[in-house]
C-alpha cells in the first residue's frame, strides 16, 4: 500500500520553476500558513494533554493539501465546508482563531461565526457535510451567486453512503463544488487497502459524471493548481470536481489515538523526506524566496498568535446550564423552557 502510494508521489525537492497561479509572495504566504497549521495541531495536542481542552485531530502531514486548496478559493466569495482537520482553512476564511479554541474547550456558540463568514462549522459525522456542500452550491447557483463550495473529507469518509449520494447529486445538479478528498492512508487504524480495492479514488468521479484528478497532496503548489482548475470549472458552470490529494497522516488520528498499536515503522519509510513543510521550504530556498532568519520570525509570530488565542479562549466565561438550551430552536416552547428552569434550579 505504502509503495503504491509512494509511486503516486513525485520525488521531493524544488524544480526551480514557479508554478503558475501562485506568485512569489503567495508562495511565502502558503509556507507561513503551513507553519501555522502545524503549530495549531501541535498546540492543540499539548493543550489536550494538559487537560485544557477536548479531543482534537491534528493536520500533521496534510498541511499542503489543506493550505494549497484553501488558497485557491476567493475569500468572501467562496465557501469552505470542513470535516474537522482543516482548522487552518477555517481561520484563513474568516473564523476567528479564538473561536477554534473555544470550540475545543466547549464554549457555547463557538461555532457561530461572524456574519458573512463563508465557513460551515466543524463536522464530526464523516461525510455528512458532503450533501450539505452540494445543496449549498446548488442553492447559490439557483439564486445567481457565483460562489464555489470546497468540501474537505478523507479516504475513510469516502466509503460512507453520504459521499456517494452527494457526488451523484452534484453531477446531476452540476453543482459548483470541489470535493477535496485528502487520502492520508489511514482511517484511525484502518489502512487504505482495507478501505477500498480501487487503485484510485479520483477515478470514482467518472461514475458520477464529474471531473476527477489525483494530485500530489504533499506539494502545496500542485494542490493549489489542481484546486484552482476545479474552482474555475465550477465558477464557469461546468460542475463539480473530485480531487484526491495523496498525502500521509504523520501523527495519530487524534489525541485519543495510539498508532503504535497498528502502524509498522516501515510504513513511514516511503514518506520520509516528504514532509510538506520541508518540501515547501526547499522550493522557496531554490527560488531564493526565503531569506535567512525569516522562517524563525514566522514561527515566533505564529506561536505567539496561537498562544494568545488559546489564552483568550480559556479566559472566556465558563458555560452555565443555560448554555445547553441556547439555539436548539428559534422558538423553544413551554416544555423546553420548563426543563431549562428545572435544570438551573436543580444545579443550585
Amino acid at each position, binding site marked *: 500500500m505504502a509503495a503504491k502510494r509512494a509511486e503516486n508521489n513525485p520525488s521531493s525537492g524544488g524544480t526551480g520553476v514557479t508554478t503558475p497561479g501562485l506568485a512569489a509572495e503567495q508562495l511565502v504566504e502558503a509556507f507561513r500558513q503551513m507553519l501555522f497549521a502545524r503549530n495549531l495541531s501541535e498546540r492543540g495536542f499539548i493543550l489536550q494533554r494538559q487537560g485544557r481542552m477536548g479531543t482534537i485531530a491534528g493536520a500533521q502531514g496534510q498541511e499542503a493539501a489543506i493550505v494549497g486548496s484553501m488558497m485557491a478559493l476567493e475569500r468572501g466569495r467562496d465557501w469552505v465546508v470542513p470535516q474537522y482537520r482543516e482548522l487552518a482553512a477555517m481561520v484563513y476564511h474568516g473564523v476567528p482563531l479564538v473561536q477554534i479554541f473555544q470550540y475545543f474547550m466547549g464554549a*457555547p*456558540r*463557538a*461555532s*457561530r*461565526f461572524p456574519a458573512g463568514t463563508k465557513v*460551515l*462549522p466543524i463536522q464530526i*459525522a464523516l461525510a*455528512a457535510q*458532503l*450533501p*450539505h*456542500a*452540494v*445543496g*449549498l*452550491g*446548488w*442553492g*447559490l447557483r*439557483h*439564486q445567481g*451567486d457565483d460562489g464555489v*463550495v470546497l468540501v474537505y473529507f478523507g479516504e475513510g469518509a469516502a466509503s460512507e*453512503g*453520504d459521499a456517494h*449520494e*452527494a457526488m*451523484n*447529486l452534484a453531477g*446531476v445538479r452540476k453543482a459548483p463544488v470541489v470535493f477535496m478528498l485528502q487520502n492520508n492512508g489511514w482511517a484511525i487504524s484502518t489502512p487504505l487497502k482495507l478501505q477500498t480495492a480501487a487503485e484510485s479514488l479520483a477515478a470514482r468521479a467518472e461514475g458520477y459524471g464529474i471531473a476527477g484528478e489525483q494530485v500530489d497532496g504533499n506539494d502545496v503548489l500542485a494542490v493549489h493548481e489542481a484546486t484552482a482548475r476545479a474552482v474555475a470549472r465550477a465558477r464557469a458552470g461546468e460542475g463539480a470536481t473530485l480531487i484526491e490529494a495523496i498525502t500521509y497522516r504523520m501523527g495519530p488520528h487524534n489525541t485519543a489515538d495510539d498508532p503504535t498499536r497498528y502502524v509498522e515503522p516501515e510504513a513511514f519509510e516511503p514518506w520520509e523526506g516528504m514532509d510538506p513543510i520541508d518540501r515547501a521550504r526547499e522550493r522557496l530556498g531554490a527560488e531564493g524566496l526565503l531569506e535567512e532568519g525569516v522562517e524563525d520570525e514566522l514561527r515566533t509570530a505564529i506561536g505567539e498568535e496561537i498562544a494568545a488565542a488559546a489564552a483568550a479562549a480559556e479566559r472566556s466565561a465558563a458555560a452555565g446550564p443555560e448554555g445547553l438550551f*441556547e*439555539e*436548539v*430552536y*428559534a*422558538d423553544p*416552547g*413551554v*416544555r*423546553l423552557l*420548563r426543563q431549562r428552569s428545572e435544570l438551573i434550579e436543580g444545579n443550585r
Partner: protein
Amino acid sequence: MTEMNMVEAIRDTLAAEMERDERVIVLGQDVGRLGGVFRATDGLEERFGEERVVDMPLAEGAIAGSAVGLAISGLVPVAEMQFLGFAAQAFHQIEGQVARMRYRSGGGLAMPIVIRAPFGGNVRTPELHSDSQEARYVQAPGIKVVAPATAADAKGLLTQAVRDQDPVLYLEPLAGYRLQRDDVPEGEHTVPFGKLRTVREGADVTVVAWSAAVRVAEAAADLAAAEGISCSVVDLRTLVPLDEDGLAEAVARTGRAVVVHEAPCSAGFGAEVIATVQEHAFWSLKAPMARVTAPDTPYPIGRLEEHYVPSATRVLAAIRRTAEAG
C-alpha cells in the same frame, strides 16, 4: 370554507406558499412531472418550473442533506420523503444534521426546512411503507414533529411549518389522504404549534391521539356513547412542541385517559403522553391510564394489518376498562 381531502389541502398549501415566497422550493422523488406518488405536488412543476420543483435522485440522505445546504444558501426547502419508513435511510441527516445545525452554529445557521413524509397503516402497502416511526424523531432535539389529522389542520400546520424558522417533520396520514375530508378555511390559515385540538368534549374518559388515530378514537367514542360512556377526544396535532398544559387539563377534566397510536407500544409516544399526564395531573386521575397501540412486532403486510393497527373495537375495549376501573 371549502371541503377538501388532506392531499388537496397539502397541494394547495404548497402552491400558496411557493406563490408567496420565491425562496420556497420543493424537492423529492417523483415530485415533479409525476406530481408525487400521491399527487401531493400535482401541477406544481408546471406552475413553478423544474428549478423550484425538483425531481431528486433516489437517495433519501441526499434529499435531507442537500436541504441543509439549500437552507444555508438562503432558500426554504420543502423536501418529501416518499414514505416515512424510507426516511430511515436519511435518519442520520435528519437527526444529526437538519435538527442540530442551528444549535451547532449557535444560531448562526437557521434551518427553515420542512420534511414531509406520509406514514401509517390500513392502505395495504408493501413492507416498510406504513411504519409509524414518529417517536424516534421526537428523540432528535432541534426538529419539530407535526402530525395533522384533518384537511383544515393539514393546511394550517403546513403553512406554519413552511414559515417556521425551525426544521419541521410534517407527517401525513396515508389513510387520511383521500378519506379525510373536511372544511378548510380559504385564504390565510395558520395553526400554531403546541396547541392541541379538542375534537369533542365528554365527561367520562379522555382519548388522546394524533394523525390517523384521531379518526379511530372518534369512531370508538361514538361506540362508547351508544353504551352511555361519554368521551372527550383530543388531537395533539404536534408532538414537538407538546401541549403539556392542554394535555394535562384535558385528562384532568375526566380523570381517565386512553392513548391511541399506530406505532409499537414500547417507547412509543404514548408512553410520553402518560408520563406527562402523571407529572402534571396525577392527583386528578381516577383510574390507570391505558394505551392502545400496535404490538412490539414489525409492521405486517396484507390483511394482517387489520390486527396490527388499533381499531375502534380495541379502543372501545380500553375505554370500557378505563371507565369501569377505580
